[in-house]
């Protein structure tokens, strides 16, 4: 079995990875057999990517991993109420961002986007302030779950935890650009679980009808919390749905940053050229339980858990870089030490920050009228 290119992109991007198609049952064996070969280390780079880019993308992944691990630690220490994790998704996230133009494009993220967010230029401190619910948190003033809200420097946002709500919203964002003749592209991230929601269908349908500049980016880790793919959908890939919406859909190996970059870049180019939406599905691993509240040994088969460990994008990317002669062990170690240092510093700062007070609790409900509707209608 190989990753099927369900519909190939038209223009010049022929080398979309044909790796393994997953299905729930066959997954583990496949991933073990092919993880080594699925990352190409001997090919030319895709247009638009330099060797420096590869290294810097890896560096972002390293930082993301360090931050991610720290957040889970803070949760175990009782300091962070909850966390999801991007471990296993990092290569795909970083590559997707690389294919976009953060200065002008829109990013509708979901809760698992540590690596994408760092690639977009948010800082570990900003994220940690969110996890700890501290004053100065930039996305929601610590009103929301970590990584939710919007960002003052990049146009990335996630209004809620409610799965798939971001898809129609992204389509609306793209519609607004198209109406004004802008050439910005909107990328919307979602999981395999989100594919089952009605909103996903409605969003893709509308985007298809109006040929809107949207990239639907599905991080398929084969689980919606505990529900495996075969209980979520009767088909092997989310990308198989794209045909029903009249646009291309493709599935690539999310361990392979080059493949993800290429597929996303093709989708972005298509969108920017006014040719409409695309669906890019990346097969990734959820290396940790769903969130810090979860225990995936309750529902993941043992061989699945073992198998996924061979598909750690950090290891696989390091391997690829080393094969290409772009990384050696010493540099790798130095990067990891540097990441740890950055995360340590950010942790210290975040821990030292105060919790928000009550002053601003009621503001920004509406424009110009912070207390028009509150604060305490029913309070006696």
């Amino acid at each position: 079995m190989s990753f099927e290119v369900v519909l190939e992109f038209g223009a010049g991007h022929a080398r979309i990875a044909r790796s393994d198609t997953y299905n729930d049952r066959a997954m583990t064996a496949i991933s073990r057999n092919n993880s080594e070969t699925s990352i190409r280390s001997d090919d030319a780079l895709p247009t638009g990517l330099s060797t420096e880019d590869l290294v810097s993308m890896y560096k972002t992944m390293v930082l993301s991993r360090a931050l991610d691990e720290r957040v889970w630690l803070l949760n175990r220490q009782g300091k962070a109420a909850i966390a999801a994790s991007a471990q296993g998704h990092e290569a795909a996230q970083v590559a997707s961002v690389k294919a976009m133009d953060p200065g002008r494009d829109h990013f509708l993220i979901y809760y698992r986007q540590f690596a994408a967010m760092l690639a977009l230029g948010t800082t570990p401190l900003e994220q940690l302030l969110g996890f700890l619910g501290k004053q100065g948190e930039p996305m929601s003033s610590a009103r929301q779950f970590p990584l939710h809200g919007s960002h003052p420097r990049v146009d990335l946002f996630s209004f809620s935890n409610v799965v798939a709500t971001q898809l129609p919203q992204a389509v609306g964002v793209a519609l607004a650009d198209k109406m004004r003749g802008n050439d910005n592209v909107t990328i919307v991230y979602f999981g395999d679980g989100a594919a089952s929601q009605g909103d996903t269908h409605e969003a893709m349908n509308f985007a298809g009808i109006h040929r809107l500049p949207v990239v639907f980016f599905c991080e398929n880790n084969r689980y919606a919390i505990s529900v495996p793919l075969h209980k979520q959908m009767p088909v092997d890939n989310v990308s198989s749905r794209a045909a029903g919406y009249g646009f291309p859909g493709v599935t690539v190996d999310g361990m392979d940053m080059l493949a993800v970059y290429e597929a996303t870049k093709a989708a972005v180019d298509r969108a920017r050229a006014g040719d409409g939406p695309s669906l890019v599905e990346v097969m990734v691993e959820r290396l940790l339980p769903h969130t810090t509240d979860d225990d995936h040994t309750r529902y993941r088969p043992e061989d699945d858990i073992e198998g996924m460990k061979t598909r750690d994008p950090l290891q696989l990317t390091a391997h690829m870089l080393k094969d290409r002669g772009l990384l050696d062990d010493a540099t790798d170690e130095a990067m990891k030490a540097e990441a740890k240092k950055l995360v340590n510093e950010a942790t210290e700062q975040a821990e030292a920050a105060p919790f928000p007070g009550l002053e601003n609790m009621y503001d920004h409900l509406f424009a110009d009228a912070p207390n028009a509707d509150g604060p305490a209608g029913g309070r006696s």
Partner: protein
Amino acid sequence: MTTMTVIEAVRDAMRLEMQRDPGVFILGEDVGNRGGVFLATDGFIKEFGEARVIDTPLAESSIAGIALGAAVNGMRPIAEIQFADFVWPAMNQLVGEASKVRYGTGGGKFAPMTVRIPYGGGVRGGLYHSQSVEVIFTHTPGIKVVAPATPYDAKGLLISAIRDDDPVVVLEHKRTYRLVRGDVPDDAYTEPIGKAEVKRRGDDLTVVTYGLMVHYCIQAAQAVSQQDEIEVEVVDLRTLRPIDGETVLDSVRRTGKALIVQEDTGAVSVSSEVAAIISQEAFFDLDGPVMRLTGPEIPPMPFNPVQEAEFMPSPDKIADAIRKLAAL
């Protein structure tokens, strides 16, 4: 000044705002060549083009979600939900999402979107073309809700809604669309969101109401004035969130008695909130219990004409309730 119906006032408001602001656009089912099933956007697709008058697929959640996305990206969408009864699929994007965008981003993003919802009964609509849906919106922090009863208010409040920088739900009572006529200034104007209006003065008893019932209450007030010499003050809430407690309380403190009239079923409703406000804030001025006259506790409302009429509060029933309360 032109005399027009409510639906004409709605159309007028949208046309003026579309002309004024290129960011304003319409999306909804059948809003294009059909001009909307109530003709609210009649002629718009010709005047403004397909790009700004979007016939959507039949999918209310996406209508709301796409409007929201466009709004946070600088547009001012006006989404039309064809009938209130079909807004339920959009609840997640409206109540769940739109209401919390500004608060949930600490002011980073906001959503200047208007959602027009034709609602209400007395139109032989049966269980799925008669619904009142105000409750969930009026309960939700971060949404404003207006419910105009007259052409003047319909135009002024709709323009305010469109220009508002946050989500506004505009509830338009279907029965008023062609039934109610009134004078409307030709130019654009705004009526303030959040302000009730005394639609009839009187010192004996206050009736608080909104929507179609405003007209029935005024009729009832005239009847009891003539027949019983009871002078009723009719307060038209106009905005259902936030409720203008001040205007209500000013009136009730003066009259000492309050009747709340609403078409929607009573339990956990706008009428409950008005009663609660009065009994908390004007208790010492009250000369009698705060009474309510509402639709009965069955799904609104039967299709057959006999039971539909029985469901709706009518000027007669309102007059009776006024007399009873006045006599206490």
